[in-house]
């Protein structure tokens, strides 16, 4: 039906996405037809209680899982109809992942971790790409720790490396799964400010969270319930500023 879907100006378009899987002879309908668009430059928070299909949607959006039916348009390609290898290519070229647990590779340095998605694009790194990795590390404030290992960094620093890594392939969107879930409020604020800055620079961000304070900082909130879209609303600038001010005021005093 959507062979001629208009994709210009969209980071991705989700059309009637359904996902079912069998668990102990019982069919679980995790997604029961979800449709929404993410225009380029958007900053969307996906919310929902556990069991709402939030994680499933995240996996499908991240091209780690395939829907039972429906379409996921990334540019002119429907990721719902792709093979395992094609999905891997999409992940390395069009998606930037940020995880709750940072998920850096322990045996690699900061700069090598940032390079990993480029490594799987199957071409040797060009000098420009190397420079870009350094620039990204500087951009997230780790220009002086290029050769550190993840274990030598704090949680906030690791998450910033992960954000730099998510940007290295110049993705269609950043997909952040509870990126502040493991962080204290001060570092949470750092990360959220970084996201805001990236969004202001034109990056599209999809952020999965269950915290209202975090979701209020996004431009738009999509809430799932029982595998369906519950609501999809725009956060007014006042709501966002209010949330930012509130976070700063309630910052614990540094001892």
């Amino acid at each position: 039906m959507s062979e001629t879907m208009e994709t210009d100006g969209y980071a991705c378009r989700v059309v009637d996405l359904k996902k079912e899987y069998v668990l102990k002879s019982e069919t679980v309908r995790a997604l029961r037809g979800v449709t929404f668009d993410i225009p380029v430059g958007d900053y969307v928070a996906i919310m929902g209680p556990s069991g709402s299909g939030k994680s499933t949607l995240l996996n499908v959006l991240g091209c780690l899982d395939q829907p039972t039916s429906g379409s996921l348009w990334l540019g002119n390609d429907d990721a719902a109809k792709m093979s395992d290898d094609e999905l891997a290519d999409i992940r390395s070229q069009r998606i930037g992942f940020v995880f709750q647990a940072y998920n850096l590779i322990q045996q690699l340095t900061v700069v090598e971790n940032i390079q990993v998605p480029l490594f799987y694009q199957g071409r040797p790194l060009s000098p420009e790409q190397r420079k870009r990795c350094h620039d990204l590390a500087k951009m997230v404030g780790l220009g002086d720790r290029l050769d550190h290992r993840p274990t030598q960094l704090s949680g906030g620093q690791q998450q910033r490396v992960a954000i730099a890594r998510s940007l290295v392939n110049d993705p269609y969107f950043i997909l952040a799964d509870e990126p502040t879930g493991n962080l204290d409020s001060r570092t949470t604020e750092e990360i959220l400010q970084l996201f805001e800055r990236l969004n202001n620079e034109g990056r599209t961000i999809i952020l999965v969270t269950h915290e209202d304070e975090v979701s209020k900082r996004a431009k738009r909130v999509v809430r799932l319930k029982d595998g369906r879209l519950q609501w999809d609303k725009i956060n007014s600038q006042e709501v966002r500023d209010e949330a930012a001010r509130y976070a700063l005021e309630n910052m614990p005093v540094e001892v």
Partner: protein
Amino acid sequence: MGLWLGTIQLGVKSLWLHPMRSILTVLGIFIGVASVIWLLAISKGIGDEAQRQIESLGADTIMIRTVKPPSEKMSSQGLTPYGLTREEYDMLVATIPTVRSAIPIREMRRQFQFKNRKLDGRLVGCTPEYAEVTKLELTSGHFITDAENFARDCHCVLSAKVAEKLFPYEDPVGQRIYMPENQDFYLVVGVLKPKGATAAIGGSMAAQDFSNDVYIPIRTLQQRIGDTIMTMRSGSREGEIIELNQITLRCRDVTEVKKTAELVGAALDSHSKMEDIAVVVPLELLEQARTTRAMFMLFMGMIAAISLLVGGIGIMNIMLATVTERTREIGIRRALGAKRRDIIRQFLVETSVLSLTGGITGILFGLLCGPAVTMARTLANTWFEKQMMDLPEVVRTVQPSIVPESIPGAFFISLVVGLVFGIYPATRAAKMNPIEALRHE
């Protein structure tokens, strides 16, 4: 290419996360590869030595030896003549066309004397061809000539050791040695170079060491000493009547040796009842020795292969543990765009790095085999001199000879071991569901 290089770098880094574990795994392959090279080199060394000894008998020769028959075959009174006869020698030379030359030989124990220096040794009556067939070389003078044999001259040729013992100061050539049993003097006409022992062959031929030999023309021996030898032993007389101890036949061509041996056996069939001769064919022994050596090497190679297998299982074991341990990393890589084949490549490269490190170090250590054995022997000789003397000759003198094919072979096998034992862990890693792998703690 850059991809592979990157993967190799990454593999080394990952392995270096657990240096002890990786080194122990490498050690397994190292021992396997080194033992392949060592065991093959040592067994080849032993085989070569045996072969060299047999070859020194001459591959184109056939030896017919007189052996003492079992006592029940000898008559109880008087002396029974036995063994090869001169008549048979003439018959063999005349009737077998494939024989190029034939040497009659008569040997006996004798005492040699010069001035007051005495030596017990072996007196050998032979013809000039003997020197060529047994590869005797001269340091001075000449070997027995046809003319000397024909004239029954009392001339002799000394082996190196006899010359050294009897003539420590003088030049032996031109001197006369004395044989007290016969009260005869022999003029020394030649001195031989030292020569190594030949192989002992079954019961029919003791190892000949040639070191205490004195050679004279056979016709001289026949005239001066005769066929009957009486010796005094513990108060009673003992004796033997033998015309010839050995006939060495040389065939025109190596390919005719077997046929000739059959003819000889048929011609000397009359001896089968008495069991007083033995036919020795070095060519057959050589072939036997080759077969034995091949089997020995195969056997040793299999032992080494088993240790390589054990090393390979060690690799697989470690890689399986690593895959489980690094489930999370696999998930991350898959999420960031790694395909299944990228994961397979990563783990196969790691196992190959392990096995090739073991392989290369094993080969280097294997190449040290020769010097290491020499050094070990020198040390053992200085510290455990007595115990070393009790060891068999083979153990004391073996010189490993590295089989050239074993080097690329060992390298190839270690690579194959790494790949074969790496495939299962690698595919297991690649088959993981990235979502579950990411959730793994």
